[in-house]
C-alpha cells in the first residue's frame, strides 16, 4: 500500500475549502461544487483526485449551513432544516454560536459516517473475486433498478431518463466486436463520451442555464461571522440530537435517493420529538441545528457505501464522485477493493483528514466565505461559467469536449424544464457499459445460454434483489396514488 501522504493531506484540506466555499453559495449544491472541480482533478493521481472530490462533498455539506444561519438562505438543500433555528439564533445575536454548533456537529456526524463506511464496505472485498460476467451484469441491473426509486413523481419519465443515459453509453467502440457506434467518424468519440463531460454539463452548466436571471440572494454583515465553538455544557446538550442525526444520516445515506435533505429533516423532527426542550424548536434551539448538521455530514460519508462497494451512486454527489473514479480508470464495485485497495484505503484516510480539516478550515475560512457570498450574483455566475469552460478544455486540450459539455448543459436544462429526473440518466451513463459488456460477455462464454444468469448464485441473488426493489417501488407508487 503506497500513496502520496502529503498529496492526500493537501487534497483533503483543499477539497474541504473548495466545498465550504461552494456550499456557502446559495443554489450551488454539493454535486455542482464537485462537478466544477472534476476537470481539475484529471491530471492528479487517482487517490489524490478522489480524496479531493470526497472532501469537497464533506466541506459543502457544512458550507451550506453558513448562509442558512446568516442570511436565512440555505446554501444546499440539506441545509434547509438548519435555517429554522439557525437564523433564529442569529437574530438573537448568537450567530457565531450557531455556526460553531453546525461545524462541530458536522464533524461528529462525519466521523460516525466514516466508521459506518469503513466497517460496511471492507467486508465486501472478501467476495470480490467470486464476481463473474453474469454477476457484474446483474450488479448493473441492480443499479439500474434504483431508477424506480429515483424517478421522482413519474416512473415513466424516470425510465425515459435512464434509457437516454443508456443510449449515451453506447457511443464509441462496441465492447465485443470493436465496431464504431454513433461516432460520426469523429476520432474524439471513439473511446465514448467521458462521463465527466456528462456530469459537468448536466449538473454545473445546466444549473447555470436554468438559473439565468434569478434574483440575487441576501447579504450578511462580516461581524456576524465569528465562529464560537460550543462549551462543554453545550456538548452535553447536543450529544443526543447529534446521535439521532448521525444514525438517521447513516441509514438514509445508503438509501437510493435518500440524501442529505431527507435525512436532515428527519433528524430535525426526531430530535424535536426526543428533546426535553421541545418548545425551543423553531425559536433558536441549538438541538435544531445539531441534528440536521450531524445528519447531512454523516450522509456525505455513508452515501459512498453503495457507490464504493457496488458501483451504484445513491445521490447526485456520489454520482459525481463515481465520475471521478471512472475518469481515472477505476471502476467502483467489489473488485475495486482487490485491484485498487490502495486507492480505497487512501480515500478512507483522506476522508478522515477531511473531517478534521473541516473543523480547522471551517473556522479559518469564514472571512473569504463571507466575501464570496456578498459578491453580486451575476459576477459569481460569470466566473463559474468561465471556470467550467476553461476546466473542461484543460482535460484534454479539446474544444470538442467543451462543445459536448455545452450540449449536455442544454440537455440538463431541458430535462429540468420537462421535469425529467437527472440521476437516472447519470446511472444509465455510468452503468450502461458495464451492463452491456458483461451481458454479452456472459452470453459468449455460455454459448448463448440465458440460464447462465440464474445459474450463477451471485447473479441470481442480485437479480432477485433488483426484482424485489422494483416490485417494492411499484407497490409504494400504486399505494400512494
Amino acid at each position, binding site marked *: 500500500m503506497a500513496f502520496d501522504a502529503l498529496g492526500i493531506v493537501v487534497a483533503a484540506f483543499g477539497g474541504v475549502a473548495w466545498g465550504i466555499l461552494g456550499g456557502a453559495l446559495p443554489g450551488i449544491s454539493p454535486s455542482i461544487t464537485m462537478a466544477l472541480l472534476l476537470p481539475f482533478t484529471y*491530471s492528479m493521481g487517482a487517490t489524490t483526485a478522489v480524496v479531493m472530490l470526497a472532501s469537497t462533498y464533506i466541506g459543502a455539506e457544512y458550507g451550506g449551513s453558513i448562509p442558512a444561519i446568516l442570511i436565512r438562505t440555505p446554501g444546499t438543500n440539506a441545509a434547509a432544516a438548519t435555517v429554522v433555528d439557525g437564523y433564529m439564533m442569529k437574530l438573537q445575536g448568537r450567530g457565531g454560536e450557531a455556526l460553531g454548533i453546525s461545524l462541530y456537529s458536522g464533524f461528529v456526524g462525519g466521523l460516525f459516517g466514516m466508521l459506518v463506511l469503513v466497517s460496511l464496505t471492507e467486508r465486501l472485498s472478501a467476495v470480490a473475486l467470486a464476481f463473474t460476467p453474469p454477476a457484474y451484469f446483474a450488479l448493473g441491473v441492480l443499479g439500474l433498478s434504483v431508477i424506480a426509486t429515483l424517478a421522482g*413523481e*413519474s*416512473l*415513466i*419519465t424516470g*425510465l*425515459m431518463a435512464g*434509457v*437516454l443515459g*443508456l*443510449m449515451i453509453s*453506447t457511443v464509441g467502440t*462496441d465492447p*465485443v*466486436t*470493436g*465496431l464504431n*457506434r*454513433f461516432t460520426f467518424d469523429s476520432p474524439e468519440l471513439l473511446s465514448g463520451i467521458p462521463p465527466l463531460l456528462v456530469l459537468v454539463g448536466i449538473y454545473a*452548466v445546466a444549473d*447555470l*442555464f436554468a438559473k*439565468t*436571471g434569478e434574483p*440575487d440572494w441576501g447579504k450578511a454583515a462580516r461581524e456576524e461571522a465569528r465562529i464560537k465553538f460550543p462549551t462543554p455544557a453545550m456538548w452535553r446538550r447536543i450529544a443526543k440530537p447529534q446521535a439521532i442525526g448521525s444514525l438517521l444520516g447513516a441509514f438514509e445515506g445508503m438509501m437510493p435517493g435518500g440524501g442529505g435533505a431527507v435525512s436532515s429533516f428527519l433528524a430535525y423532527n426526531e430530535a424535536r420529538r426526543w428533546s426535553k426542550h421541545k418548545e425551543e424548536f423553531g425559536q433558536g434551539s441549538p438541538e435544531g441545528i445539531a441534528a440536521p448538521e450531524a445528519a447531512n455530514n454523516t450522509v456525505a460519508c455513508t452515501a459512498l457505501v453503495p457507490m464504493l462497494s457496488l458501483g451504484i451512486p445513491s445521490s447526485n454527489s456520489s454520482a459525481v464522485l463515481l465520475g471521478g473514479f471512472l475518469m481515472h480508470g477505476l471502476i467502483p464495485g467489489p473488485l475495486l477493493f482487490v485491484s485498487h485497495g490502495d486507492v480505497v484505503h487512501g480515500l478512507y484516510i483522506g476522508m478522515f483528514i477531511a473531517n478534521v480539516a473541516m473543523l480547522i478550515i471551517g473556522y479559518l475560512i469564514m472571512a473569504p466565505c463571507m466575501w464570496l457570498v456578498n459578491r*453580486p*450574483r*451575476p*459576477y459569481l*455566475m*460569470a*466566473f463559474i*461559467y*468561465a*471556470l467550467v*469552460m*476553461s476546466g473542461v*478544455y*484543460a482535460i484534454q*486540450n479539446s*474544444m470538442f469536449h*467543451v*462543445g459536448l459539455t*455545452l450540449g449536455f*448543459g*442544454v440537455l440538463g*436544462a431541458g430535462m429540468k424544464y*420537462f*421535469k*425529467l429526473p437527472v440521476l437516472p440518466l447519470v446511472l444509465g451513463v455510468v452503468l450502461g457499459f458495464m451492463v*452491456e459488456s458483461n*451481458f*454479452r460477455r456472459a*452470453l459468449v462464454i455460455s454459448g*448463448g445460454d440465458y440460464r447462465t444468469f440464474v445459474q450463477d448464485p451471485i447473479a441470481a441473488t442480485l437479480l432477485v434483489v433488483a426484482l424485489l426493489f422494483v416490485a417494492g417501488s*411499484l407497490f409504494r*407508487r*400504486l399505494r400512494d*396514488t
Partner: protein
Amino acid sequence: MRRAPATTVDARRELVLGWAMLAIAAGYYALATRIPESGIADAIGAQGLPKAYAAILALLSIIVIGRALRARHTAIDAAAAESAAGLRHVGLRTAGMLVVGALYVALVPWLGYIVSIAGLIASTVALQGGRLDRRTAAIAAGGALLLWLLFVRLLGIPHPSGIWPSML
C-alpha cells in the same frame, strides 16, 4: 402509477416531451441500423442493445403522449399562472447563455483565450442581470488575466493564443 398532468400547461409540456423523445428514439434507431455487421459478432451484436433501447424509449414516449392527450380534457387551464411573457424572457436568457458558450468555442481559436474568456465573463454578467459598464469590463479583463495565470502559467495548460502571436 402517476398523477395525471394537473394543468393544461403540464399536459402541453408532457405532449412536447413525448414527441421529442419519440423523435430521438426514431433517429437513434435509424442510426443503430447503420452499424455494420461483424463477422465476429456475438448473438446480440453491436446493434442489439441500441435497437432495444430505442424501442423502449419509443414505447415510453407513446405512453407519455397518450397520457398527455387524455389529460388535456381534464386538466385545469392554468395558463395565467405561468406567464408566457415571463417564460419567454427566461427562455431567451437561457438561450443567450448557450449562444455565449457556443461563440466562445467558435472564436477562441482566433481571438485567443484571454480575449474570449473576458468576452464570455462580460456577456454572462449582462445575461445574469448585471450591467455592462466600465466596472464589468474591468472585472472581465482582470478575471480573464487571473484565469490565464491559473491555467496557463500555474497549471501549465496551453490554451489557444489566437491570431495575436502571428501579428507580432
